[in-house]
């Protein structure tokens, strides 16, 4: 009803994924000294991928209907 929920979720996680990926690049020193490796970069990319998959599913569903 109203909207396909995959769209806002996909958009949200795509944007958050991009923000976290950039934060991983920008705060590289802090992340590595705190955690030993650049986890922010990895997690940002994972979230970005999740967001894009959701957006993809949304477009497939929309084309079908």
């Amino acid at each position, binding site marked *: *009803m109203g909207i396909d929920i995959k769209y806002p*979720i996909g958009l949200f996680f795509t944007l958050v994924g991009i923000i976290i990926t950039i934060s991983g690049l920008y705060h590289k020193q802090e992340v590595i000294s*705190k955690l030993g490796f650049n986890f922010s970069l990895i997690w940002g990319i994972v979230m970005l991928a999740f967001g894009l998959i959701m957006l993809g599913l949304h477009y497939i569903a929309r084309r079908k209907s």
Partner: protein
Amino acid sequence: MALSIFDYLIIILYFGFVLGIGYFLKKAIKTSDDYFLSGRSIPAWITGIAFIAANLGALEVMGMVANSAKYGILTAHFYWIGAIPAMAFVGVFMMPFYYGSKARSVPEYLRLRFDEKTRGFNAISFAVLTLLMSGINMYAMGIIFKLLLGWSFHFSVIVSAVIVLLYVFFGGLTSSIYNEVLQFLLIVFGLFPISYLGLREVGGWNELVKRLPDNFTHLWSTLSSASQNPMGIEWFGMIFGLGFVLSFGYWCTDFLVVQRALASKDINAARRTPLIGAFPKMLFPFFVVLPGMIAILVIPEFKTALDTLLKTGHTANVNYNMALPLLIKHYLPRGLLGLGLTALLASFMSGMAGNVTAFNTVWTFDIYQSYIRPGKDDKHYLWMGKMATVFGVLVSIALTYIVMYFNNLMDYMQLLFSFFNAPLFATFLLGMFWKRATSDGAFWGLVSGTSAAAAHYFLIYKAGIIHYGSEMSANFYGAIVAWVVCFLTTIIISYMTKPKPDEEMVKLVYSLTPKEYKDNIPFYLKPGFLAAIVLISTLILNIIFW
């Protein structure tokens, strides 16, 4: 703790999205059914996630991490025995009556099956408890953001309350459900890094088990007597108190969760809702219990508390409620910090919105339409629902400040819930599966069950007549007492009073309901099949962590 621009961006983006969802759903709301029941149109995977997310409020997420820091893996019992079996039961056996009877709320089912006074008792107690819960949620949030970020208590409370108000006001239940899905995913993405980074720091699961005492890492092997485990409880209280009465009382009768299933598009989707929710619920200990156990080792004050306990046998006075915020601070660098904080915010807001949507429905249908203004047109009740949303949020804010002055109210909340929820499950069990149960039986059963729970707590436990290993253990046994008293009273009084004629109970009682929902759906979507998978997987988890 200092935030960077990235952290603020994530928080602002989150606020923007929840409001946007409410705004775009505004156009879809035309009738009161759209507003309170999402027009019964939502697919099962969405209602399934909302089913468990509505319960993922602040007390749940932070409370379970805190519990795990205090009691270790025993906290997983709240999931594997305290939720999954009940979720399977409500999906397979009870949902056909909730959904099939076309009742719009749990109290309304009680009116259809029994009578007005039984509904009134449930509707009023539920409405009051729901708003209290919502207020406590806000209070917890204000405190956390003040401690973590130095934000003003009033600012955090008012801003989040207004955001919840706006998205529920415009989009009703659909908006609440859609946002719960977003919030659920955020909680998962926000908590995963803590579990993962924590395990990495302590050197993996085996190392964690090695460094914690045995009774912190085993589910059942220390439950043979109350003195052997930190929770101070033995298997009987665990299985019957938590696993049977409290768990079934909550997951099968609490309108907050049942409402999510009523929003499903058809009866099969309604039955699948709790079963689909059970899968992520089963895995949730990874996101809350594991971090709590890690916190014991990596947060210095918890480590000291454990050492004291092992050396002297006395529990140190530590505030475990801060376990999750402290972990967020410990593990998340700037950027990810915003994600972790947004996950916390999401849990506070989904907790509050769930309570507000359940409140506005029960208020409008079960109190306002029944006792105050019956017989008005649908537009009027839609308007009333929106007003009830505003009223519910305002009262929640007021209660937040009351909780601030009566701090121990929070401790009494679980107890109050057990007073009302535990007997209710006996009423439903008899109402749905025994057609001889009468209205008077149900009403007096509920009243005596609730009174028995209160009497057990204040006159027997607090007066020192019976001793329990812990407050939690007392709570579990109190629930058993309430359930048994309600169950027996309902049966006895039912035999003394006249039952309703059979034709008035079609679609309300098991033996009088045609099984029309067994149509041609593939076997892997059948509730029985899903329930079997869920239960077998849960059994395996119990054995692995025995």
